[in-house]
C-alpha cells in the first residue's frame, strides 16, 4: 500500500501498463524530461527511454494523427493533451479518424489508444486551461469517454483503458490531481478476474434515500461534500460517480432514482446540450412514473469559460448543489 496523489497514481498506472505491454508508447508535449506540466509522467522517460516516452513536436493534430498510424500497426499509444483547451487542433483527427476507423475498416483496424486530457476548472488558470469538452466527445460514436474521480479509480482505470481495444478519451480532473488516497499496488489490476470488464460501470459513492446526485470527475467530491452537509440538515443524498460517460451505466442510475424519486445532475460543462441533458432525458424516460420532481441540473453556464477570478461563480459548488436539492425536494 502507498499513499499517493491522483497524479502519482496515474503515473504508477502508466508505469505498470508500460511494463505489462511493450507496445504501450506515451506521446505528449513536455512529458519527457519535464514529466508533463502536471508531472503525471514524471520519471517515465528515464525509465523507458525516449522511444517509448515521446516528446513530440508541438502540434496536437500531429500527435493524435501519428498515434493513429502507430495504433494501425498494433501499438498502443497513450496521448497526453496538455490542457483541455488544446485538444481542438486534434479534434478533426479524433472525430474523423480515431472514432471511425474501426467502423469503416469493418473491424480490420483496431485503434487501441487512450487520449488523456486534464480537464475542468478550479485551479485559477488563464483561459483555455479550464474547459470541460466532454459532450463533444460523447456525441461522437466510436469513442468511449471516461473520467476517474479519485486516485484509486485513476490508477485502475488508466491501466484498464490502455488494455482496452477501443479508443478512449480519458478525462483527468486536474483540480483533483493533488487529492491523496491509499493505493494497493500489490495486486496486478489487469490480473483481477474482471480485467477491464468493470471499467464502464458507475459506482454508488454514497448511499442515500432522498435525492440522487449524479456526477463524474471533479464534481464527485463536491457532491460528496454537499451530501455530508445535507446530512446535518436531515437530508439523505445518494451520490453516483458515473466514471464512464459513454457507455453510460443507466442501470445504476435508474436503480437509485427509482429509490429516491429525485435527481440532480452536476457537471462543470455548460448545461445546454451537455451530458446532463442526455442523462435527464434517459432517466425521465425510464423513471417517469416513480419520479417526484423533474431532473434538475447544476452546471457551468452558456458562455466561454470565464476569467479565473470569477470561476467560483461559474463552477457548481456545495451551495448551488444544495440549492437545487432543495428545489427538487419542494416538488
Amino acid at each position, binding site marked *: 500500500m502507498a499513499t499517493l496523489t491522483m497524479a502519482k497514481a496515474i503515473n504508477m498506472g502508466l508505469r505498470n501498463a508500460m511494463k505489462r505491454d511493450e507496445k504501450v*508508447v506515451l506521446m505528449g508535449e513536455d512529458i519527457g524530461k519535464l514529466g508533463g506540466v502536471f508531472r503525471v509522467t514524471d520519471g517515465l522517460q528515464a525509465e523507458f527511454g525516449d*522511444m517509448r516516452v515521446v516528446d*513530440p*513536436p508541438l*502540434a496536437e*493534430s*500531429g500527435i*493524435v*494523427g*501519428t*498515434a*493513429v*498510424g*502507430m*495504433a*494501425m*500497426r*498494433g*501499438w498502443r*499509444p497513450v496521448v497526453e493533451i496538455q490542457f483541455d483547451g488544446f485538444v481542438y*487542433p486534434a479534434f*478533426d*483527427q479524433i472525430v*474523423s*479518424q480515431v472514432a*471511425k*476507423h*474501426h*467502423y*469503416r*475498416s*469493418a*473491424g*480490420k*483496424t*483496431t485503434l*487501441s489508444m487512450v487520449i488523456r486530457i486534464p480537464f475542468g476548472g478550479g485551479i485559477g488558470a488563464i483561459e483555455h486551461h479550464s474547459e470541460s469538452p466532454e459532450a463533444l466527445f460523447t456525441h461522437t*460514436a*466510436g469513442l*468511449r469517454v471516461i473520467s476517474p474521480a479519485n486516485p484509486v479509480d485513476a490508477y485502475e482505470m488508466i491501466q484498464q483503458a490502455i488494455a*482496452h*481495444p*477501443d479508443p478512449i478519451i480519458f478525462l483527468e480532473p486536474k483540480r483533483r490531481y493533488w487529492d491523496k488516497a491509499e493505493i494497493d499496488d500489490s495486486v496486478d489490476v489487469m490480473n483481477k478476474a474482471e480485467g477491464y470488464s468493470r471499467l464502464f460501470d458507475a459506482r454508488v459513492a454514497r448511499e442515500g434515500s432522498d435525492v440522487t446526485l449524479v456526477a463524474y470527475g471533479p464534481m464527485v467530491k463536491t457532491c460528496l461534500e454537499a451530501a455530508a452537509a445535507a446530512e446535518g440538515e436531515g437530508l439523505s443524498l445518494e451520490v453516483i460517480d458515473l466514471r464512464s460517460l*459513454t*457507455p*453510460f451505466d*443507466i442501470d445504476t442510475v435508474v436503480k437509485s432514482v427509482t429509490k429516491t424519486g429525485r435527481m440532480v445532475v452536476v457537471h462543470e460543462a455548460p448545461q445546454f446540450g451537455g451530458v446532463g441533458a442526455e442523462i435527464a432525458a434517459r432517466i425521465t424516460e425510464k423513471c417517469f412514473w416513480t419520479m417526484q420532481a423533474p431532473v434538475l441540473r447544476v452546471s457551468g453556464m452558456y458562455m466561454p469559460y470565464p476569467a479565473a477570478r470569477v470561476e467560483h461563480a461559474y463552477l457548481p459548488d456545495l451551495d448551488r448543489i444544495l440549492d437545487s436539492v432543495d428545489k427538487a425536494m419542494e416538488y
Partner: protein
Amino acid sequence: MLTAPDDLIQLLTHEGKRVTHADFSLDITDDEIRSLYRDLCMVRRFDNEATALQRQGELALWAQCQGQEAAQVGAGRALLPTDFVFPSYREHGIAWTSGVDPVAILGLFRGTTNGGWDPYEHNFGLYTVVIGNQCLHAVGYAMAGLREGKTEAVLTCFGDGGSNQGDVSEAFVFAGVYNAPVVFLCQNNQYAISEPNYRQMRAPIYKRAEGYGFPGYRVDGNDVLAMLAVMRHSYEHARSGKGPVLVEAFTYRLGAHTTSDDPTRYRDADEVEYWKDRDPLLRVKRYLDSVNTPQSFYDEIEVAAEAMAVHIRAGVRELADPTLDEMFTHVYAEPHPLVEQEHREMTEYFEQFGGMRSPHAAGGH
C-alpha cells in the same frame, strides 16, 4: 495558360523520346515499358468504366484520375510488397498496382461501405476523404516501424489542395524530426476542385521539403519512366534510414474533380487541349510505336481491359447494401450497450414491416 515548367525531372518527352537526366536514370527494357503501358491502359479503362457507372446511376460519385495515371503507376510499381500505402481518395492507379480489386474501390463510391477492403491484405490503406489526415497516419505507421527495426518505406499521397492542410505540414515536421521512412507524393494536378495553383501557393510545393529538412523533387508526373525512377530512388532513400522525401508529380487533371464537378466553368479549353497532347498514355504509345511494337500487343490489352470492364460492371451491381445487422456492427471493437440497444430497437421497429427494406431495391420507393 498553364504550361509544363521546363525544369521537371523527365526521362520520356511528350513526343515519346527517351531523354537522360543528370541525377536520375532508369535501366529499363522496352518490354518493361510495355508492361507499364499496360497498367496505364487498365487504370484508364477502370476510371472510364467507373465514370460511366456513375452516369448510369450505379455510383453516387466518382473521383476520376484521368491524366494522373503515370504518376500513380510509376509510384505504385516502384513499391515493394512490404511497403505500405496511405492514399487519399483518387489513388486508383496505386490501388491497381497494389492488387486491390477495382470493385472493392467502387463500394465506397456506390455507398455500400465506408471502407471496402482490408488495409493489411495488400498493404494499401483505406481511402481517406478528409484532406490530409492520412499523411499523419503514414508518419505514425513509419515511426512504429522504426521501433520494430523494420526497413520498409511508407507512401502517402495528397494533392496540391491537400498541401495547404495543417495535417500535411505537421506530417512533414514529424517525419523530419523522427527521420521517418515516409515518401510524400504530392500529385499536383493543378486544381483543388476549381482553385488553381496560383490561388493556393506562392512557391512550388516541392521546395517546402528543404524547410522541413529533407529532399524534395519535382517530376514530370505525366512521364511514367521519370516517376518510376524518382520513386524508386525515394523509397530506397527512406528504406536505407535516410528519412523522408517529398516528390511533387507535376501533372494535370484531364477529367473533372469528381462526377459532380463542371470544370468548363473554371478552365480554358485551350489549356485542356495543351495537356491532352501531354497525356501520360499517349507519350508511351508514341515511344512504343517508334520501337516497332506489334498491333497484337495493343489488342491484347484491349481484350484484358474489356474483361476487367465486364468484371467491374457485374461486380458493382452485385455489391449488396449492408444489412441492418451490418450497419450496427464494428462501431466499437467490444460491445457497447447503447449501440446494442439501438440495434435492438431498430430491428424491432423494422420487424413490424417485415424487416428493413432498401429504397434502392426493386419494388422499393
